């Protein structure tokens, strides 16, 4: 047996490493650099019903050990994703996790229904951290009841397992986690970005044209680890952990905290080969730690 293999609802992963949504497009660019079939899975860029241009630039800004982004869900829209992007990825032997975003429940449902039927889409990642105009500024990701309802609606139409991506910008992430578990979620992914700002000292203006942006990268790792730990104590569905992963021990730590697999976002911009490097480095590190199969790591800290 492959000691790096991880089984999750809908997903047989060769290894627990996958690029995080929004940091890897639909794979084409990184395919110039290495064989995408090496990856455990790919979380592709958020897809919305209609094409979106996104926010004005600057859309990114560096911060200490992190970065802010406000891309604004730019994507070619459901139709193009299903007819062009996903079929292109079929040449690789890698499961695709389709990140789905929207502003109305109906949008989410429409996208999930269709995208879950794409042959290589093995799971949906429901991105509930986007402002929901309908609910008067409350976001799907911060209200447990709304999050649960959305999960139910999406589960009703999706032909593949649904993972809900949790926002860290909440008082109690376990409340949302439990709600979407009740709503039928097959798994959870966390964390999305922390809302942050940076200013230009010369002008006093925010650097990101959108004002606020999402903080990611190593800076947020302690918050992400804490939330993975809390959430995996609170629910029994599996968690894919992310937030600042860049080194092999980060993978170990997220799994010790309770994650079953991990996603790597920002680090792909810093070391474009980080995912295959992590995959390469895992077996030796497991040997050093005296661990046979990587699945033994998951939730280690809870059992101590």
């Amino acid at each position, binding site marked *: 047996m492959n000691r790096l293999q991880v089984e999750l609802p809908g997903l047989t992963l060769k290894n627990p490493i996958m690029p995080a949504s*929004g*940091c*890897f*497009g639909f794979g*084409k*660019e*990184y395919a*110039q*650099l290495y064989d995408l079939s090496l990856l455990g899975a790919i979380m592709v*860029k958020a897809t919305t019903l209609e*094409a979106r*241009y*996104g926010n004005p*630039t*600057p*859309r*990114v*800004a*560096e*911060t*200490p*050990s*992190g*970065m802010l*982004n406000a*891309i604004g869900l*730019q994507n*070619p829209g459901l139709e193009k994703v299903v007819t062009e992007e996903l079929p292109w990825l079929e040449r690789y032997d890698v499961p695709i996790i389709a990140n789905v975003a929207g502003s109305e429940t109906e949008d989410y449902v429409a996208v999930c229904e269709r995208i879950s039927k794409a042959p290589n889409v093995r799971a949906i990642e429901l991105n509930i951290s986007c402002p929901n105009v309908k609910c008067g500024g409350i976001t799907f990701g911060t209200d447990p009841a709304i999050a649960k309802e959305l999960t139910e609606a999406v589960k009703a139409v999706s032909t593949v397992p649904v993972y809900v991506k949790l926002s860290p910008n909440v008082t109690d992430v376990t409340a949302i986690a439990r709600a979407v578990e009740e709503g039928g979620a097959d798994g959870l992914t966390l964390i999305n970005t922390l809302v942050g700002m940076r200013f230009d000292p010369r002008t006093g203006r925010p650097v990101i044209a959108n004002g606020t942006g999402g903080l990611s*990268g*190593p*800076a947020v790792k302690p918050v992400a680890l804490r939330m993975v730990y809390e959430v995996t104590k609170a629910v029994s569905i599996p968690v894919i952990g992310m937030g600042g992963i*860049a080194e092999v021990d980060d993978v170990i730590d997220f799994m010790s905290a309770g994650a079953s697999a991990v996603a790597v976002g*920002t680090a*792909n*911009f*810093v*070391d*474009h*080969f980080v995912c295959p490097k992590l995959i390469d480095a895992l077996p030796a590190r497991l040997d050093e730690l005296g661990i046979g199969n990587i699945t033994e790591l998951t939730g280690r800290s809870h059992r101590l």
Partner: protein
Amino acid sequence: MIRNECMAVVAQAEIARNIFELTLKGGLVSEIGKPGRFVHIRTSDGFDPLLRRPVSISSVDEEAGTMTLIYRAEGKGTALLSRKSAGETVDVLGPLGNGFPAEAAKAGSRALIVGGGIGVPPLYGLSEKLKAAGVEPVHVLGFQSADVAFYEEQFGELGETHLATVDGSAGTKGFVTDVIRSLPGEFDVYYSCGPLPMLTAVSSEMEGTEGYLSFEERMGCGIGACFACVCRTDSNEKGYVKVCSDGPVFRDGVVKL
């Protein structure tokens, strides 16, 4: 092919105030081809600063297997880069993006080359290429002041070279467009790189002439995956181009200024 390589520092020197000329050696050099492409540089081993820094390739010496970058040490990342000295290595991803189409200028024609500040470097490799192809390059280089001006002599060896400085401490006092307006004769094509206001001014000054402009935008990935660096365009149905992978050089008119 895009490579990620720890390139050897062959030389580094401060050639004007806070302006550094860095020569790097490595296999990546053989992939460069066109002038005007860029590399994405990791400036620290740790996570602060985190992101890579995009820097244009100024010129290439294929025989020596080296490339030269010229950059301004301003913020955290470039300041760290400027401390590297011969014998050390630099983590470089590249070559990235599409460069200047030197072939747009035919042998025997005149090409106008307009650079501003740290937009000047990639034009040097371009001008070398043009000269070699029998094109007559005419250079207009704009700087804030004499102390941050560089490469006047090097450009001079390739062709007619005019300087403009905002404070008048070297060349014409004023902007590159002031110089352009005073130049006699016609140009078949122009190439430009510099701050956005300069590109806008040059583009309108040169209206009617075929032109290629090199843009800057904040970057994440540098390879087209993150959508950080988009600009609006009417030239394709998507409505945008990415500076990192579709650019940084675009034909005049492609990017909505």
